[in-house]
């Protein structure tokens, strides 16, 4: 294998001036074309993803993507367009395409840019960019080491979907006709392994991954591989459960999905459309009284950190839920105007939304549960955002006397999200910090488990 350089020698940050120029050009062209307000964002990302399977390189994918998106407002009408072509002519055509659309959309009194006084003016370094130029040989070596650690753990690990490693970096520039121009560059590196355990009971696959903005903070290949193998092995000889009601403990990697259902329900878009199970719940008791859920946009090096949102509004650290009571919604300028509230700086989503722990690790939570279901995998999309009805496929472990007794599969867990939120008994300190939603394992008092 030759030692080819992985990324092109220039990093994406060197494209900053070019992207700023494009955004300015798009804004100028919008004005010329008759837009009363405009916003534009330009981005560039590049990287590599590589998979080794059974010790051999299987795929190498080099990525390099760019794009320009423009939204224009002609009075209270809006239109959007995007392109991957950065030529001046393409920028002009994109602006015109957006303006054409704005001739046909309806007057909407809430449409428009964020209010100028909400725009970010402080841009602290959030430690989000850590380029890595490891060279192809080192990437292959790490992916191979991670997979090998999994394959060598136990003779029942007989097959693999591979060890994968990736390194990506990106930069985005956002500007609007209020004069705002913000830029953010970031990196993301990850290492994962997916393997298959097999015995007379059949095959079970599981995986593990480590992901961080800094390559030197990734878990070691050996640790990722051994964790993946251990997770696959422990699923062998899974049984079905009889249909019952019992406490359910969501292991940290799947527990964060419960926070995503909260975010969907308190998003401005769901609220003004009255398509949420948490309508008019501001100041109401939505969770068990101990629950605190807060946003941390300025956490150094974290996945969801940002000093401004997708429309340039300054982000703010805040409690979304305190003492179980909903303290605010998740709003952008448009949905805020629809609801008669100020934006919360959440255009594009929340920033490092975190559930504070009130308990120890997963073992402690199993003991606290005593008897019940530990869920380690969820499949399917059975969530009704309007009613809060919840029904998903699950796999995991049956727990008795605080100890795992056997793996279970081909079951569903069901309930209603408002009841589930109020039924939060405990949140573990085993917080999964890989994503933008940060939660430890969550114990819920009672759900319906359907099986045999």
């Amino acid at each position: 294998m030759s030692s080819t350089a992985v990324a092109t020698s220039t990093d994406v940050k060197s494209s900053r001036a070019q992207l700023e120029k494009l955004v300015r050009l798009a804004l100028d062209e919008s004005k010329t074309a008759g837009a009363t307000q405009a916003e534009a964002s330009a981005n560039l990302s590049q990287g590599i993803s590589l998979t080794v399977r059974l010790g051999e390189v299987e795929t190498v994918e080099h990525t390099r993507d760019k794009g320009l998106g423009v939204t224009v407002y002609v009075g209270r009408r809006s239109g959007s367009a995007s392109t991957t072509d950065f030529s001046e002519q393409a920028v002009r055509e994109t602006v015109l395409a957006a303006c054409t659309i704005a001739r046909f959309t309806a007057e909407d009194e809430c449409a428009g840019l964020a209010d100028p006084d909400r725009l970010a003016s402080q841009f602290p370094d959030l430690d989000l960019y850590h380029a890595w130029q490891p060279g192809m040989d080192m990437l292959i070596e790490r992916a191979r080491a991670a997979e090998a650690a999994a394959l060598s753990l136990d003779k029942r690990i007989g097959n693999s979907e591979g060890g994968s490693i990736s390194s990506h970096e990106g930069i985005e520039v956002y500007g609007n006709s209020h004069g705002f121009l913000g830029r953010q560059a970031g990196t993301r590196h990850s290492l994962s392994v997916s393997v298959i355990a097999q015995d007379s009971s059949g095959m079970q696959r599981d995986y593990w991954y480590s992901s961080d903005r800094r390559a030197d903070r990734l878990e070691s290949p050996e640790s990722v591989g051994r964790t993946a193998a251990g997770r696959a092995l422990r699923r062998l000889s899974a049984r079905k459960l009889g249909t019952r009601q019992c406490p359910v403990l969501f292991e940290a990697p799947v527990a964060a999905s419960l926070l995503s259902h909260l975010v969907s329900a308190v998003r401005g878009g769901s609220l003004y459309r009255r398509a949420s199970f948490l309508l008019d719940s501001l100041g109401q008791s939505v969770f068990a009284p101990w629950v605190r859920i807060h946003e941390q946009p300025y956490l150094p090096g974290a996945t969801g950190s940002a000093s401004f949102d997708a429309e340039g509004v300054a982000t703010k650290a805040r409690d979304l839920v305190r003492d179980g009571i909903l303290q605010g919604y998740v709003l952008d300028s448009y949905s805020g105007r629809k609801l008669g509230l100020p934006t919360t700086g959440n255009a594009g989503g929340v920033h490092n939304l975190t559930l504070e722990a009130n308990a120890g690790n997963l073992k402690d939570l199993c003991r606290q549960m005593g008897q019940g279901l530990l869920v380690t995998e969820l499949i399917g999309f059975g969530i009704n955002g309007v009613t809060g009805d919840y029904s998903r496929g699950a796999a995991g472990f049956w727990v008795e006397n605080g100890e795992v007794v056997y793996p279970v599969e081909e079951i569903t867990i069901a309930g209603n999200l408002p009841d589930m939120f109020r039924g939060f008994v405990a949140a573990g300190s085993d917080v999964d910090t890989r994503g933008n939603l940060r939660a430890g394992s969550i114990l819920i008092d009672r759900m319906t488990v359907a099986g045999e």
Partner: protein
Amino acid sequence: MKDDTTARDRLALARRTLLEPANLGERELEQLFGRLMQGSVDYADLYFQYSRHEAWSLEEGIVKSGSHNIECGVGVRAVAAEKQGLAYSDEIALPALIEATGAARAIARQGGKAKTAAAWRQAETRSLYAPLDPVASLADDAKVRLLERIEREARAADPRVKQVMASLAAVHEQVLVARADGLLAADVRPLVRINVTVIAEANGRRETGTAGGGGRYDYSYFVDARGQARETALGYAREAVRQALVNLEADEAPAGSMTVVLGPGWPGILLHEAIGHGLEGDFNRKGTSAFAGRVGERVAARGVTVVDDGTLNDRRGSLNVDDEGTISQRTVLIEDGVLKGYMQDLMNARLMKVAPTGNGRRESYAHLPMPRMTNTYMLAGSHDPGEIIASVDRGLYAVNFGGGQVDITNGKFVFSASEAYLIENGKITRPVKGATLIGNGPDVLTRVSMIGNDLKLDSGVGTCGKEGQSVPVGVGQPTLRIDGLTVGGTRG
């Protein structure tokens, strides 16, 4: 229908759009393949793509937003045995292509002599849909009027309708595949779609209903020559309202294993999840599918025949030619209950020493192709649907579904009902809330005890995700009785 004239026209159009602006001719392609086909590289292809996409959406009675996106680029792939390298560029130009070839072939051992290029030839393709540009097929104000008309239809259907959200989307895509073996294939793929979601409210309760459809047409599928909304489009509005109103009356869903009767059409997502993914060639070559090594074995009850068919006219999942230049096909997956074969792309077919089946698909030039479904459905049986319902003492009748998912290794799959009823003593009695159904792919079809005579395909809304890549697909089936499927309700 195979039609060489239109195939030639499509190739000419794709060359004009994708190659000629960059001055790329056969000589330049040969130069690129000369660079790619070195050392241990035994196959390579270039995938040129141009796509134009628009979307319009209505809520609160007005069309608030619209968007227009253009994407263009070329993917360069080099294959050496089981290794694949991909590099791509969103700029179609020779220097960018030369750089990409260098990156793509880095997976292979270097050195040795370049293989000589084969003579160029045009791929055999089908003509299942017209080479339309739906985006340009209707004036923008008429697109807005269509959404407004759909909104009025939904509101007029019932006063309990409180919110209507409707969207209209169209894609015009041109692709050109150039292969190291000299094959040139092109396709021009139109795609349109309407989605309608309504929220109905009564007695403090709110419920949703969703409907939609489309296919490889232009907007004349939804609008007639005088600019009036067709019944196709208005029907989605009424169907969404009907579902929302049914759900307003729904009780808690049952929990546990029971007899389930699935309605015809979209419930065919069962087949897509339970067996479709498990029969994709890549998982079977690697031995990671619960179906691996089971060709020739009984995996379904007698009478069950399932096909994947990319050759249906105008369907959302249909292809004139796949994304690797293989003509689309009708592949029998299960015949009379016996597993017949897998869906293949070029690489997995070669490694498994079988013929490709026209299932090599990729989301875009920036993604590697892999075996994917097209339109997957079960053939009709002999039972009257009414007779199937009447045969059930106690069970669930599920007629509409949201999404589904499968773990292909242990075979467990789910799909979530959005409209369902209890069957009691052979009669449909009352609606119950949506619930997730879970089963085991390799044995669920062995529990099929009755197959209806009412095969129906879905209305054209399916999108399948695999390893981060989305492609449009279709599903279908007749009414089916399955003895023993776990229903994930709350009433134990």
